């Protein structure tokens, strides 16, 4: 048997320990180990390592799966970004799947919080708002059509086009200055108002709002790779507040806006 006479390689010793050595080499390896105590000691040490690792961690797989890792909860979306303070990791994570499977079309902004449901008009609006965020937030020279200095004019103009007495929130208490705004296509061919805010650190937040067919909804948080959004519908006006995916900050901004627009349309004058 020629197989028997072939010298035993290191690879085969590993395969032996890992139980993946082909049957026709098992005898040769056993014979080799019997004649070579050093190699036998090595194999025994490797086995002991493997046993120790399995003894230490093997039982983890038998633990009940914690609630936050249950698919239903993850799919429901309420947990997508519930972990706080891990933004750098999350941003760094962006390309992970693409690294794993190069190719694959636009892994960018697909908001798949609840893939079971067909996207509603409001989901489409959210996607549009995030597209706008992505598009304009990097714009240095022309992020807006009307600068924040002309807020009154901006409000009048956008209110007319959207068909709703809008209120442009003042976010100065959060250190956010109004950069300005622009008119954008809305979800159903209608018009949408788009405002941009900026803080001293250069972080930008945007508010996209347009008439929505949905009634009222609660504030919802949606996260993507690098950006996140808080969305809601109030008084048949849909809002999408977008910003960097730091949930605490974004929620603070969104709630502040929510409180301000909740007071109803700004009185003219």
């Amino acid at each position, binding site marked *: 048997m020629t197989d028997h006479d072939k010298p035993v390689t290191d690879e085969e010793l*590993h395969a032996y320990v890992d139980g993946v050595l082909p049957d026709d080499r098992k005898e040769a390896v056993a014979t080799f180990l019997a004649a070579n105590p050093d190699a036998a000691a090595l194999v025994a040490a490797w086995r002991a390592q493997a046993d120790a690792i399995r003894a230490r961690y*093997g039982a983890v797989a038998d633990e009940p799966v914690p609630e936050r890792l249950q698919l239903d909860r993850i799919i429901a979306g309420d947990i997508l970004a519930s972990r706080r303070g891990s933004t750098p990791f999350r941003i760094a994570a962006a390309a*992970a799947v693409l690294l794993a499977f190069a190719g694959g079309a636009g892994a960018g902004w697909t908001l798949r919080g609840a893939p079971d449901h067909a996207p509603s008009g409001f989901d489409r609006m959210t996607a549009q708002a995030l597209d706008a965020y992505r598009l304009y937030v990097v714009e240095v020279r022309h992020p807006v059509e009307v600068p924040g200095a002309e807020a009154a004019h901006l409000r009048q103009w956008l209110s007319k086009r959207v068909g709703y007495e809008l209120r442009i929130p003042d976010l100065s208490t959060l250190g956010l200055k109004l950069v300005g705004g622009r008119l954008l296509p809305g979800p159903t061919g209608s018009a949408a108002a788009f405002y941009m805010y900026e803080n001293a650190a250069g972080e930008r937040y945007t508010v996209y709002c347009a008439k929505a067919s949905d009634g009222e909804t609660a504030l919802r948080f949606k996260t993507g790779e690098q950006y996140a959004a808080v969305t809601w519908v109030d008084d048949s006006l849909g809002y999408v507040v977008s910003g960097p995916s730091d949930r605490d900050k974004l929620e603070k901004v969104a709630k502040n806006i929510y409180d301000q627009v909740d007071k109803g349309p700004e009185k003219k004058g």
Partner: protein
Amino acid sequence: MATFRRDIEATIPALRRYARALTRDADLADDLVQDTLVRALRSEHLFHGGDTRVWMYTILANLNRNRLRALARRPAMMPIDDGDAAEGAPEGARDVERALATLVEEQRHALLLVVLEGLSYREVAEIQGVPIGTVMSRLARARSQIKTFLEGGRPALRRVK
């Protein structure tokens, strides 16, 4: 689609085990698994058949690599003597944790995928995106390093998880 979900769901216990051994930190491990699940669910359209389990390990490994990269950019304070790091763990278990901590990341992955997760060398090669020969040499180095560590030799380089 329902099958896809079920297949993903079936991998969760093993992913948790793998992540726990990789990070040696229960919370961090579950964070990693959570992110892996989110990514997988969002990337359903990128999954073109094949072994779901291998795919999930691949995502998790990539996420962990990114995490470490992000950490590397921010210097962290680590105790020089981590003798009291594993609270209440028996001496032997602590040795395993510390031994794993001395490994180079890719070696640790290779060893754990084979020894703890029971994957074939070919599957590990697929996950790591390298030839089988590279997996074998990572495995060999990992085993040799752990042996040296457990026998009391100081590792050449103290690596922090």
